[in-house]
């Protein structure tokens, strides 16, 4: 571990950026109100980001900031912390309780998934990708399968398209319920945690019934869906929709009725539209600033073209807006699920092309050709023509993109996943600046980062 002494001895490959001595418009990190700072400075955000080596926790006096009163202290809101939603570490520069600058240190859950993705065939790829964003795993599988199908140039049968949309919307409701739970817990209402997880259990049992696992299911595969919907799925989903919709109004009264909740969310962590666009923020964070950008509406994929739903847009871009957006999106998703149930087409749930879809187990014993297909697909995998493609869908956290380069073999040559949380985390220093430490807790939970997707 790089202790303090050998930090200086090993030649610093990169010279220290001279941000500390450069005169920013905010003077020597003085606390001027935000409206004096010109947009350029905000865009650059060197004012709010603490650019330090993340190794040791430094003493402020050692990083030669010319602050008149060296009362600021740099503390760690480290990887093992109850309210950092996983293993995110924040190096916070505090003046008493007020957060001045932040550096979000990530990588504590780096699993090398993009490297593992290069060693797995396209058939196995979804199992690796589904473990990235573990709150909405079906979205990862969907974006990987859509990218593979785009490379193969194949069309998925209509029933598979509608089943995929149905499962993804259910997954979105589950992910937003988990967010409501942890956001409530962070702001002190443990009962919200229990309610949120109780509703989510109903969706988990439906996933277990359909796919066999509660999540990380590998249910959406290139070429369609792993299995058809179980019988009796119709009234399961109706029960879920009615219960969750009725209870979402209960959560609304539980939370917005509380002065503590309103005090800690209204006006806290506010973001403006041009800052969000400059930082590449997408999803509920971008919509909370008033930009009506939802990939399901503007670039419809799967069955979203035929569904009637509203895009929810906020006004102030603060925590309360993001809470209201996610709550309303739960209701929108339920509205969509109800439409999906009525118009669910019949037919086969998987592409009948033997090169891509393995034959059903029963037929292997009888026909030799089925056995050969089965053997080839599961050992070596199907070959994907050479080329590269970038597909993007709207996951509960923002634009989830998958960039695959294929060299004609049966394993992706390069598989990169654009994680929405990875980019959304960059607006943390901007949102935390000038707020209290307890506001930092509320803002981290309202940005809703999932560390599996951030660190990949």
């Amino acid at each position: 571990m790089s202790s303090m002494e050998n930090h200086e001895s090993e030649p610093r490959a990169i010279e220290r950026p001279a941000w500390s001595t450069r005169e920013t418009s905010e003077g020597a990190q003085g606390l001027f109100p935000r409206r004096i700072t010109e947009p350029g400075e905000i865009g650059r955000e060197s004012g709010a980001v603490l650019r330090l080596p993340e190794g040791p926790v430094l003493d402020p006096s050692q990083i030669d900031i010319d602050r008149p009163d060296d009362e600021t202290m740099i503390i760690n809101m480290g990887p093992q912390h109850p309210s950092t939603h996983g293993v995110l570490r924040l190096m916070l520069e505090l003046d008493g309780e007020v957060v001045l600058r932040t550096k979000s240190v990530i990588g504590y859950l780096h699993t090398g998934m993009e490297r593992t993705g290069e060693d797995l065939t396209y058939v196995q790829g979804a199992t690796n990708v589904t473990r990235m964003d573990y709150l909405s795993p079906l979205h990862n599988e969907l974006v990987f399968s859509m990218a593979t199908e785009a490379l193969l140039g194949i069309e998925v049968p209509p029933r598979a398209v509608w089943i995929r949309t149905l499962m993804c919307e259910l997954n979105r409701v589950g992910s937003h319920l988990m967010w409501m739970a942890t956001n409530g817990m962070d702001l002190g209402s443990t009962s919200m945690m229990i309610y949120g997880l109780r509703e989510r259990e109903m969706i988990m049992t439906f996933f277990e019934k359909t796919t066999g696992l509660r999540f990380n299911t590998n249910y959406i595969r290139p070429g369609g869906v792993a299995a058809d919907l179980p019988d009796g799925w119709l009234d399961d989903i109706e029960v879920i929709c009615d219960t969750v919709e009725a209870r979402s109004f209960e959560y609304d009264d539980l939370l917005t009725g509380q002065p503590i909740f309103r005090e800690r969310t209204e006006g806290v962590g506010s973001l403006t539209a041009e800052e969000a666009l400059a930082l590449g923020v997408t999803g509920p964070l971008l919509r909370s600033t008033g930009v009506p950008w939802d990939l399901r509406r503007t670039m419809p994929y799967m069955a979203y073209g035929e569904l009637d739903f509203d895009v929810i847009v906020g006004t102030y871009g603060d925590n309360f807006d993001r809470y209201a957006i996610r709550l309303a999106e739960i209701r929108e998703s339920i509205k969509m699920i109800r439409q999906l149930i009525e118009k669910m087409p019949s037919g086969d749930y998987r592409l009948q092309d033997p090169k891509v879809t393995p034959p059903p187990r029963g037929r292997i014993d009888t026909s030799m050709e089925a056995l050969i297909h089965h053997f080839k697909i599961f050992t070596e995998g199907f070959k994907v023509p050479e080329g590269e493609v970038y597909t993007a869908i709207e996951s509960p956290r923002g634009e989830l993109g998958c960039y695959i380069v294929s060299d004609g073999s049966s394993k992706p040559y390069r598989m990169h996943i654009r994680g929405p949380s990875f980019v959304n985390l960059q607006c943390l220093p901007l949102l935390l600046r000038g707020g209290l430490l307890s506001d930092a807790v509320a803002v981290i939970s309202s940005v809703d980062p999932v560390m599996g997707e951030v660190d990949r």
Partner: protein
Amino acid sequence: MSDASIGILSGVPQQAGIGVDQIAFPSRDGYQGLVSSLRDSGFELCADLCAVDYLTHPGRRLPDGIGPERFEIVVNLLSLSQKRRLRIRVQVPEAEPVVDSLFDVYPGTEAMEREAFDLFGIRFAGHPDLTRILMPEDWEGHPLRKDFGDGRVPVQFKEIPGPR
């Protein structure tokens, strides 16, 4: 395709990608200029920036006039007003893997460029804080390069797949 971006892209070799994608191949020094002019012409959001190592797959489809190099920086721009995507692929030679940083054009690419530096070793000139982001500070080597051994612990019942 708004006429502004057609004019900008006219000088740059292009290629049609799969589906509706459109790909541009600027040279390394014209890269930052092109991206900033594209941003002014309507591409408000830079969705993604990643690097690709083409060590063991040199023969890839490139428009004529573009020499294939080992590394490639892939930038995905997104235009909210025109609902359009554009992909920019820049060739980066192995001898001198340095590219201009997009931080001044899109501050959102800071973390993505740090990840490209961390996993591939491609340096970005003008980046405010080019340090490792995912790997530990004192890690040697860049893991996603094709010649970096994949650190696989030999499993008893499986032959050891050598580095590809």
